[in-house]
């Protein structure tokens, strides 16, 4: 007779290994597809998974098969008008009424790319493959200044507020039971003897009975004298501080919003910031983002305003750097927070200000930073800010700068900035 088995609870992901192998095998193609996807798609949904396509010919599994040509006989159903000997025009493309090969039927995508969806994790893995956060190792080693208080059992000493009442009373009961045990045993013994004596007909007044009664009384007093609770019984909840590696990061987004930064450039900057944000997200549990925009004066703003409000005017970059420094020193203790900064600008600055920027960076900001990335969004020649920053770069290994011309540059530049550094 048939045997029924419920397999629904068995593992569902029998194919996971095969899927991983498939992804691994086509990693190069997938990476290309992912890079394209990043540049193409809108920024707001970059956080989700992604559909990627690989050219079908790259992943085809070849077999020997017949090609076009030669003589082929085919039988089809549904004849309505044809008679024997009819000539039919050859249909275009080889499919359809004449030679219904039905190639397009499979998978619905026909001969196009093999398109499928990557999960968010797979997508980000491919996107940030071979990239690393500069100085991440250092973070984890020195970032242990944050502590977390955890329970560590009970201690015999501690502050009165930490007394564990239940535990202490339990100890007291145990102590009283233990210390009173011999006396109680003796009392029971004596009582039995008294009973035995009484049973033999001896009266209450007999010396033997009285002696024993007195001993019982003495013992009872002794039991009663056992302290209800003793300092010895006290137990305190014990807490210890465990050092925790810091897993918090703050990302400072600094952008020039002066008149020369148009919406296109802002969008480029935004993409760059988002990539950085995603990348940080993979490495830290908690990320805060601070948006600082500036023209001649700097402001801390929210995201919406940061990207979309319109401002005009000149450019003083140092104002933003000063503000950034203030924000960091007020709110983000570098021993607790991993601080990253990304600055986007079109490179315009008051000439005299660039030197100031360099000094602020070198002396104040860079010592606090894990990494500082500067992208210049301009197709033009570099201006004073770039040259000033070059000096910073020479002095600080965790300062990086790149130039972005257009959308296509963003991802390569990002990769360039964060590529794995061979030691």
């Amino acid at each position: 007779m048939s045997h029924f088995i419920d397999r629904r609870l068995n593992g569902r992901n029998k194919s996971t290994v095969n899927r991983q192998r498939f992804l691994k095998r086509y990693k190069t193609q997938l990476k290309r597809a992912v890079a394209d996807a990043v540049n193409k798609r809108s920024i707001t949904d970059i956080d989700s998974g992604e559909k990627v396509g690989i050219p079908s010919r790259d992943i085809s599994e070849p077999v020997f098969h017949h090609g076009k040509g030669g003589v082929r006989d085919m039988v089809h159903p549904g004849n309505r008008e044809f008679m024997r000997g009819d000539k039919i025009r050859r249909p275009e493309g080889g499919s359809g009424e004449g030679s219904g090969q039905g190639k397009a039927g499979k998978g619905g995508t026909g001969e196009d790319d093999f398109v499928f969806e990557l999960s968010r994790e797979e997508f980000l893995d491919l996107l940030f493959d071979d990239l690393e956060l500069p100085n991440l190792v250092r973070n984890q080693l020195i970032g242990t200044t944050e502590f977390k208080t955890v329970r560590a059992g009970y201690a015999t000493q501690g502050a009165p507020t930490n007394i564990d009442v239940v535990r202490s009373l339990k100890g007291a009961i145990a102590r009283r039971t233990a210390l009173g045990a011999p006396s109680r045993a003796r009392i029971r013994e004596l009582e039995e003897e008294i009973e035995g004596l009484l049973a033999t007909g001896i009266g209450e007044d007999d010396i033997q009975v009285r002696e024993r009664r007195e001993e019982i009384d003495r013992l009872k007093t002794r039991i009663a004298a056992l302290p209800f609770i003793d300092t010895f019984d006290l137990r305190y909840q014990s807490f210890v501080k465990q050092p925790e590696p810091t897993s918090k990061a703050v990302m400072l987004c600094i952008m020039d919003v002066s008149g020369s930064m148009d919406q296109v450039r802002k969008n480029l900057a935004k993409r760059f910031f988002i990539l950085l944000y995603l990348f940080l997200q993979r490495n830290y549990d908690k990320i805060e983002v601070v948006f600082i925009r500036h023209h001649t004066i700097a402001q801390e703003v929210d995201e919406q305003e940061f990207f979309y409000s319109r401002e005009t005017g000149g450019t003083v970059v140092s104002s933003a750097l000063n503000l950034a420094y203030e924000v960091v020193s007020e709110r983000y203790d570098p021993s607790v927070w991993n601080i990253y900064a990304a600055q986007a600008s079109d490179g315009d600055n008051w000439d005299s200000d660039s030197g100031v920027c360099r000094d602020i960076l070198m002396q104040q900001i860079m010592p606090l930073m894990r990494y500082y990335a500067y992208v210049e969004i301009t197709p033009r020649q570099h201006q004073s800010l770039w040259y000033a920053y070059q000096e910073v770069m020479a002095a600080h290994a965790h300062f990086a700068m790149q130039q972005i011309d257009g959308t296509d540059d963003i991802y390569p530049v990002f990769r360039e900035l964060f590529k794995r550094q061979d030691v």
Partner: protein
Amino acid sequence: MTKRLITDSSEWSFPLLERFDREIAERAHNVYGLDTYANQVEVISSEQMIDAYSSVGLPIYYQHWSFGKQFVATEQTYRRGQMGLAYEIVINSDPCIAYLMEENSLPMQALVIAHASYGHNSFFKGNYLFRTWTSADAIIDYLVFARKYIAQCEERYGHEEVELLLDSCHALMNHGVDRYKRPAPLSMAEEQRRQLERETYLQYQVNDLWRTLPRQEGSAEEGGEIRWPEEPQENLLYFIEKNAPLLEPWQREVVRIVRKIGQYFYPQRQTQVMNEGWATFWHYTLLNHLYDDGLVSDGFMMEFLQSHTSVVLQPPFDAPYYNGINPYALGFAMMRDIRRICESPTEEDRYWFPDFAGGDWKKVLDFAMRNFKDESFIAQFLSPTLMRDFHLFAICDDDREEHLNVTAIHEEQGYRALRQALAEQYNLGTREPNIQVFSVDRRGDRSMTLRHFTHNRRPLGDSVEEMLRHIRRLWGFAVRLESVDEQGRVQLVGEAI
């Protein structure tokens, strides 16, 4: 007979499934005389169904990226709603394993049980191709062995290495079957296998190809130009497994595994129409029988018929979703037609099928199921009635002519030609290119020459270059492919050096 519905719910439960199975089994075995393996029915979720899909339905398989690709593709189309999953997958094994999806309603589950566990099951057990080419009792063991062995190889020789080898073997999977020789049983005890491996090893030690000592002049055979192999070999994988000079023993074993599994699927590729037709015919017959006995309600039958008719739908050639002849439709119609010819034959039927018109339909169907494959089944049993019902017509597509030629339609003069043409369409020999090992240059550069015997001047597709590289990888030396046309003219098609 009083009404004694099993249930009027459409939700399934295990007790209900068992009850249905009991009723179906009783009729299948006692009334219709179906001979089946024991059944094992497994209920799985849709994700698990996709998993099963990607390993060609096998419950256990070795690991390879191509199954991952299959999985990704299936999952994708399923998610987009472009494709429903099959309601069942059934495996030719003893016991016969059938998968039911938990999402199916009760009528669907009953349909699937009848279809897979009694229809397909009896076909697997009875049909001569399956009996000859597969050993149902050993396949699962063999797959377990294959998976373990390949996993071991990956551990020992690296994923990459094994993957490359498997890629090449998969490419030749359809050319790893002896079409005329009965294969040895699929699986064998561990010891036997070891022994075989040693044998293979020894064989390759003494292989002529391997011999590097120059022959003494005097002992050389006359002319020294004897072609080797003496007979062309159609089983490329077998030839490579036994003769490729540079393969390591483990590589031979892997080639062998792929070959054996290819062989296991070989009968399926040749009996699609019959197999599906048979199973569809029986789920239809069995469930109708349940209905006649009053065991199931009208609602149940409506739901069943709705799925059934969509399975056996045959769109005409000019429909936008036409995708060739639907094997379910053709097979089911032919099975039903055979029953009709037996039960109420017309004059025409008596003329066309004198052997069995008016006979016992159960015996005739059983005979047909046991002794035919698609090609011969159609050539033997396709009746004029059916050709008319399907409005079949044959077209000749000759690339030398400007127009397609309608060679036969469903009329008196066309029946035979039509039937012949349709049967030919299911002939694996013409569907797949006929490629054979023609010779190996044993004395010289050890290169292998393959020959493609063309049929109707049909050339090979554009995968030739890549295929040759795969064969080159397996063989280890240069590989040449020639094509031979019907006049015997030989032409070089490609070469991988």
